[in-house]
C-alpha cells in the first residue's frame, strides 16, 4: 500500500523509531558515575560471575538514569566501557526495555496502566482526565517539564485498579474524577501524596 493516497511519501516519512542521538548536541553532557554510584556499581557487579559482567547492564543503566534523569549516548558509552561490551550492545538493551528514557522527562512521570483490568475500572478515563488536565497526550512532556504522561502495560496490581505509577511510586485505585486532583497534589506536595502499594494503604488504615 505504498501508494495509498493518505500516505505522504517524503523524507520525513522515513524515520527511525530510535531516539538516541549521538551528535555533539544530543549525546548529553559528559557522563561518569558519581563516586557513590560507582561504589554501588562495583558492589552490584560482584553478584555475577567475573566473566559475566554484562549481566549488570540493567542495574548499571538504572544507576545512570537515577543519576542523570535519562540515558544519553555518553551514559551508554560509560556503561559499555565499565562492562566491557559495545555501545550497540547497551543500546540494544536500552531500546528494548520500557523503563529507560532516552529523552529528558518531566519531574513526574505519570504512568497510567492501560491493560485490561485497569481499563475495566476506568483507566481510559483516567488517561482522558490527565490528558485534559495537563494539555498533553500520552508520550508527551508538558511545556514546564513538570509532567510526562505515559500509558504503560499491566503493572501487576489489578485488584487496585486503576493503578498509576508516578516515577517509581505507586498510586492505586485512582478514580477518574480524582485524577485532576492528583496532578494538583503532586505539584503542591510531590510524591508524598501517592497512596503507595495497597498493603501500605491497609496497614496505614489499620494503624488509624
Amino acid at each position, binding site marked *: 500500500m505504498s501508494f495509498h493516497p493518505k500516505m505522504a511519501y517524503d523524507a520525513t516519512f522515513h524515520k527511525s523509531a530510535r531516539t538516541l542521538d549521538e551528535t555533539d548536541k544530543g549525546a548529553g553532557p559528559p557522563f561518569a558515575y558519581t563516586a557513590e554510584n560507582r561504589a554501588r556499581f562495583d558492589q552490584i557487579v560482584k*553478584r555475577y*560471575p567475573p566473566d*559475566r*559482567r*554484562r*549481566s*549488570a*547492564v*540493567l*542495574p548499571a*543503566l*538504572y544507576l545512570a538514569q537515577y543519576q542523570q534523569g535519562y540515558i544519553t549516548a555518553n551514559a551508554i558509552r560509560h556503561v559499555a566501557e565499565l*562492562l566491557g*561490551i559495545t555501545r550497540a*550492545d547497551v543500546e*540494544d*538493551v536500552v531500546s*528494548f*526495555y*520500557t*523503563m*529507560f528514557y532516552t529523552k529528558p522527562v518531566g519531574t513526574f512521570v505519570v504512568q*497510567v496502566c*492501560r*491493560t*485490561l*483490568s485497569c*481499563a*475495566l*475500572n*476506568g483507566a*481510559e*478515563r483516567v*488517561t*482522558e482526565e490527565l*490528558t485534559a488536565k495537563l494539555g498533553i*497526550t*500520552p508520550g508527551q512532556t508538558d511545556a514546564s517539564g513538570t509532567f510526562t504522561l505515559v*500509558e*504503560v*502495560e*499491566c*503493572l*501487576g*496490581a*489489578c*485488584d*487496585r*485498579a486503576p493503578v498509576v*505509577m508516578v516515577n*517509581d*511510586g*505507586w498510586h492505586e485505585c485512582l478514580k477518574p474524577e480524582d485524577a485532576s486532583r492528583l496532578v494538583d497534589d503532586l505539584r503542591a506536595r510531590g510524591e508524598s501524596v501517592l497512596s*503507595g*502499594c495497597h*498493603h*501500605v494503604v*491497609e496497614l496505614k488504615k*489499620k*494503624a488509624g
Partner: protein
Amino acid sequence: MDPILTKYVREPNSFTLDFYVEHEGYAALKAALTKKPDEIIEMVKASGLRGRGGAGFPTGMKWQFVDKKVEPRYIACNADESEPGTFKDHLLMERNPHLLIEGCAIGCYAIGAKVAYIYIRGEFLHVQGILERAIADAYARGFLGKNILGSGFDCDVYMHRGAGAYEAGEETALLESLEGKRAQPRNKPPFPALVGLYNKPTAVNNVETLCNVPLIVSKGAEWFAGLGPEKNGGPKLYCVSGHVKRPGVYETDMKITLRELIDGHAGGVRDGRTLKAVIPGGSSVPVLMPDQLDTQASFDAIQKAGSLLGSAAIIVLDDTTCMVWLAENLLHFYRHESCGKCTPCREGTDWLHKILRRIERGEGQMQDLDLLSSVSANIAGKTLCAFGDAAVTPVTTTLKHFRHEYEAHIKEGRCTLTADWRARHTVGAHA
C-alpha cells in the same frame, strides 16, 4: 481452606525476619539440610507440586531434569509477574519475602546450586526494597551465605531488577535478560535444565512455586498432595480482578469452583450487573462463559472446560464489556510486548491489532473477521515461544463466543455498547 502462604499477610510486620522466625520460619530449611538433596527432589515430586507461573509443569520433574554433572548450577526465580490480571507474587514478595528466600535456598540445596537469582520486574520498586532488606537480614542471621546453619551448604540469593518487558517472564527470555541482553526467548532444545543461565543447568521457577517448597518439606508431600484434587495439590493463590466487588488475592485449595471464587470471595459482580464472561488464567487464555462457572479452578478441570488455569488470574467481565474492545485492548498489550524476535509474532500481533482497531472504530469489513481468524491461525504454533499462542487467544476466543459483537461493529460502524468506565474520546493508545 485457611490461607497458608498468605496467612500472615495482614500482619503489620509479616515481612520481617523476626516475625517470620517466630512463626516457624526457616524451620523447613533446617529440616531440608538434614536430608539428602535427592530426597528433597523426591518429596517435591511426590507432592505433585505444579509450577504456578502458568504452564503447570511438575516442579519435581523440572528439578530432576537439571543436569547434576555440570557445575555450577543455578536457580532463576521468575518474579517478573507481568501476565495481565496477575498480582499474587507481588503480594507474596511484599508481605512474605522470607518464604521465597527459604524456598530459593531449599531449591538450591536440592539441585546442587549455590546461587539463586530472583528476577523481579522493574516496576515493583517498593517490593524490591522489602526483598533486598529481607535478603540482607537472612544473610546476617546465617540463613544465606557460607555454611548455612552449620551444614556446610553455601547459598547466595541475589535480586535482579528487570526493566519493563513482559517477555522477560518467558523462562529463556528471563535468562537472556539476566545475562544482560534483550529479553528474547532462546530456541528449545536445549532446555534450561541442561543449558540455562550462563549455559549452565538452571531451574527456572515461579515465586509462588518456590514458596510452596518449604511447606512440602515441613509438612510432607502427602499432606500437600492431599490439599486439593488429585494432581492439583497444595494451596493456590487466585487473583480476582475486573468487574467484581472485592478484587484481590484469595488463597485456597484447587477444589474451589470459579463461582465460589467470584461470588464468594470476591463478592460477586459489582453494581448489580450480570456476568458476561470470565478469563480464568490471565489474558493469554480463552474465556469461559457464565454457564461454566461451576468449573473447579484446578489446572486439569479448567483445561477440560476449554481454557487454562495459567497464572490463576481471574478477570471478571460484566455485561457492559465490549468484547471487540477487549480483544483490541489485549492485542495492544501483546503487540507492544512482542519481543520482535520471530516473524509471526512480530508482524502478526501488529497486523491483528491494526485490524482490530479498525473494527473497533467501526471501519471494519466483514471479510476482516475471516482475516482475523486466519492471521491468528497463522501465528499460533509457529512462533519461537508460547507468546504467539497467548497473543492470538483474545482474538480467537472472542471471535468464537462473540462473533455477533464484531458483526455489529461492522454493520453499525461503531461500538453499540456504552460503559461509564470507557473513554469518552479516543486518547492515548486509542488515538
